């Protein structure tokens, strides 16, 4: 498929913005078919358009060592022939309707999405059911498509030192769990994938009881229910492999990784092992971590852009992320490039970032600062509903991580309750050396004369 985007942990800015509830959003209607397929429908009447997304709960964190990239390669192959479509025909059908289709793989799940005129919703559901049960996975198509996967890896990871560093950093940051595995797969593993391995993976995980269907747009729940039963109802439920949510060590220890590149602007990436909404003992910690991320870097008046980019021009492109919705543990990450016009050593940047985190531990933020960060997070939830795919992607996150949709509404309530003291508390609890993985991208030292 064209323009598949990979979402590895923390890589997509969407993940932060989409992570939570929207009390103002109308509640979606939900139902479960007899075979276990969960269907979620969100009404949005702005235009006669609908997006349908099939979420299958398998991703890179499920993959065994040596077979990284299985879920992502399978995602590619599903468009190359099925019971009802010839290779390439899927896209031609969608295009004749003026629709667009795409797919992406995350560590926890895989999403296939189709947006088209709402009058043709049934086509989307028929194609979706065919993806879930009718894939051909023919040898000759595998041989061809694996080249596109390798090209994707070269073009999106290998050619970019910061992307390569990000992959190595994840491998360090998750010492005990499958979250260490890159979504696209390590190159030597992609080379070793086989059509048989993909077929087995498909048979193991692609079942109605391991999938959800999200529909957002100008449609009603009853209509979707009738069509979902017609096309998905006949698929049998299957026994699924055992899978444990990826959990990390309480004290993994300080870790570092370092690469050099002659032409890159030096870059620093720091990540603390933290719980997600699924694994947190106290949900309030999750809301406080979200607020901390916003307070540090959301908006030009946030602490890090203001203090380290403007008042003291040390860095550029500061980015702070915390993706709270996952089936396992999470990372709280900070990254930045040095200011190339006034280059300071990367160690100076690292020291400045640590000092900012230390300040959060020492002194609670002001009430005004907390309010501003909270308002921005709440507004982001509204802005994220602008695109139909954004709304569906938000629901897909919860469904793909097998979390209750009721938690979306709770997340907003929890965000409202966060205090300045709780921000200080999570900083003290989680921003410790033992939880930290630091990655450095530097230029090589010139040889000594």
């Amino acid at each position: 498929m064209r323009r598949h985007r990979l979402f590895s942990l923390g890589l997509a800015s969407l993940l932060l913005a989409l992570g939570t509830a929207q009390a103002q959003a109308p509640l979606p209607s939900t139902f479960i078919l007899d075979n276990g397929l969960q269907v979620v429908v969100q009404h949005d009447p702005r235009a006669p358009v609908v997006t349908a997304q099939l979420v299958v709960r398998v991703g890179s964190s499920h993959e065994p060592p040596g077979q990284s990239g299985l879920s992502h390669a399978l995602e590619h192959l599903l468009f190359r022939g099925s019971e009802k479509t010839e290779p390439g025909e899927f896209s031609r059908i969608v295009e004749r309707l003026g629709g667009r289709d795409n797919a992406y793989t995350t560590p926890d799940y895989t999403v296939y999405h189709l947006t088209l005129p709402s009058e043709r919703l049934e086509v989307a559901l028929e194609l979706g059911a065919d993806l879930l049960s009718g894939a051909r996975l023919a040898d000759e198509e595998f041989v061809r498509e694996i080249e596109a996967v390798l090209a994707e890896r070269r073009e999106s990871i290998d050619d970019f030192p910061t992307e390569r560093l990000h992959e190595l950093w994840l491998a360090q940051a998750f010492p005990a769990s499958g979250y260490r595995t890159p979504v696209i797969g390590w190159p030597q593993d992609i080379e070793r994938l086989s059509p048989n391995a993909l077929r087995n993976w498909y048979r193991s995980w692609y079942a109605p009881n391991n999938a959800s269907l999200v529909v957002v747009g100008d449609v009603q729940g009853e209509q979707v229910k009738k069509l979902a039963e017609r096309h998905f109802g006949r698929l049998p439920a299957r026994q699924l492999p055992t899978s444990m949510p990826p959990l990390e060590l309480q004290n993994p220890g300080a870790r570092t990784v370092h690469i050099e590149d002659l032409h890159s602007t030096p870059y620093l990436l720091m990540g603390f092992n933290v719980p997600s909404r699924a694994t947190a003992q106290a949900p309030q910690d999750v809301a406080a971590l979200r607020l901390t991320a916003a307070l540090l870097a959301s908006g030009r008046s946030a602490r890090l852009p203001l203090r380290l980019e403007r008042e003291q021009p040390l860095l550029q492109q500061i980015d702070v992320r915390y993706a709270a919705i996952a089936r396992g543990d999470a990372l709280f990450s900070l990254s930045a490039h040095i200011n190339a016009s006034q280059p300071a050593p990367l160690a100076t940047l690292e020291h400045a970032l640590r000092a900012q985190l230390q300040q959060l531990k020492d002194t609670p933020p002001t009430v005004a600062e907390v309010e501003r960060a909270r308002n921005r997070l709440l507004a982001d939830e509204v802005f994220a509903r602008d695109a139909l795919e954004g709304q569906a992607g938000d629901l897909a996150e919860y469904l793909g991580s097998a979390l209750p949709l009721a938690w979306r509404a709770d997340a907003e309530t929890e965000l409202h309750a966060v205090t300045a003291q709780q921000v200080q508390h999570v900083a003290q609890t989680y921003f410790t050396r033992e939880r930290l993985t630091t990655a450095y991208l530097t230029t090589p030292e010139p040889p000594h004369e």
Partner: protein
Amino acid sequence: MNRCFPLLAFALLTLISGASASALTSLQAAPPLSPLPPLPIQAWQTAQGARVLFMPSRHLPMFDLQVTFAAGSGRNTSAFGLAGLTLSMLDEGTRSHAAEQIAEAFDASAARFDKTLDRERATLTLRSLSRQAPREAAVAQFVELLGEPTFPPDRLALVQDQFFNRLQALATSDKYRASEQLYHHLYAGHPFAAPLHGTVEHLAGLDVADLSDFYQRHFSASNALIVLVGDLSDAQARQIAERVSNALPQGPAQSAMALPTRQDAEIYQLDGLGNQAHLLFGLPAVAADDPDLPALTVANLILGGNVSSRLIEQVRNRHGLSYDPYSELTSHSTSGLWTLQANVEARYQQATMELIHNLLETFANEGPTEQEFDDARQYLRGTLLLNAVSNEDIARHLRDIGFNHLPLDQRGHLLEAVQKLTLDQLKVVLKKHLVLDRLVQVGVGPTVAQEPLPSPGGE
């Protein structure tokens, strides 16, 4: 390699038999699609001469405000980077507030403020909640920086540094370098040849008087297009447009952009880093209001604009050379260009360029098949529908039709033109514009030994 042919023949067979042969039951008895509903766009002009386009969309409690000026990089003919630097300095200080206070005002009202520059246009964007308190605060701050920027000298060095950093990063971007080379050639002697983000030498030589002067001449009300989309009443929209318009300097509208002169074919090879090569092919095309644009839009979809295009079929599916090759039409107000790009392993650069050249030659000579032609026309209808759901997409559409003085029902006009179009007419337009002895080819990549095309699954 030979095994590709039976497959290709099979693909053509399914193309010819069309959608009716599909195994999908949902397509077999589907009634025809409804006509495209027109968008409820309102247009007016303010007393000061700013043009306004407004489309209400009241489902979500938010709105978008965009103000666009004919103040892109093509307007800074003597100082490369002046347009961008002026735009970037607008929120660095006003008569009433310092930069930090401006940033804090936007953040406190949870609004998103952004600035974008292209060769022709400078655009300021505000996205805000529509509730009265945040709306009022965000609009007030936005209007203030548009109307009374002071370009404080102590902020200039900081913003200049940001530009230098960006230029340094772009110097390693194969894609940016290829695009700049293409504009430099196709627009030789024309303002669009100016580098989009300026040069270090020119930027370093600018002072606040230059910025202030550029602002006075280009950011006037008669030079402004105001776009509003979202949860606003007619009265609220009119009031916001008035406030923006009143705040802007007075001055004459900018003259129309000149036409580029005709250039010869050329091949450029630029040194690049890493193991990949970026390939960019470009031809002059047409302006946004050109009568040939509907036909070229259809032709572009078939060539490389959609997923089942010839470019994807050949470069990605058949040879596995590139993940995401594509072609696109770019239309400015008085000219345009047709580009095609692919990222490949450096060792296949030469072979891929030949492959794409042959593909272009065949397409120019033979044109599309009936099936491709029909599919692309169907696709276009749905695309217009899908691209008018979100505020963001609608605002982009309004900006394009407003800036280029296109009819308010541009979608309806385009669709009608495309429905009337015959395949023979399209072939005539294609021959007129897809002229290979004007083709500019740019390759950016390392120098490595060249290899013949791989054919995965073949032989």
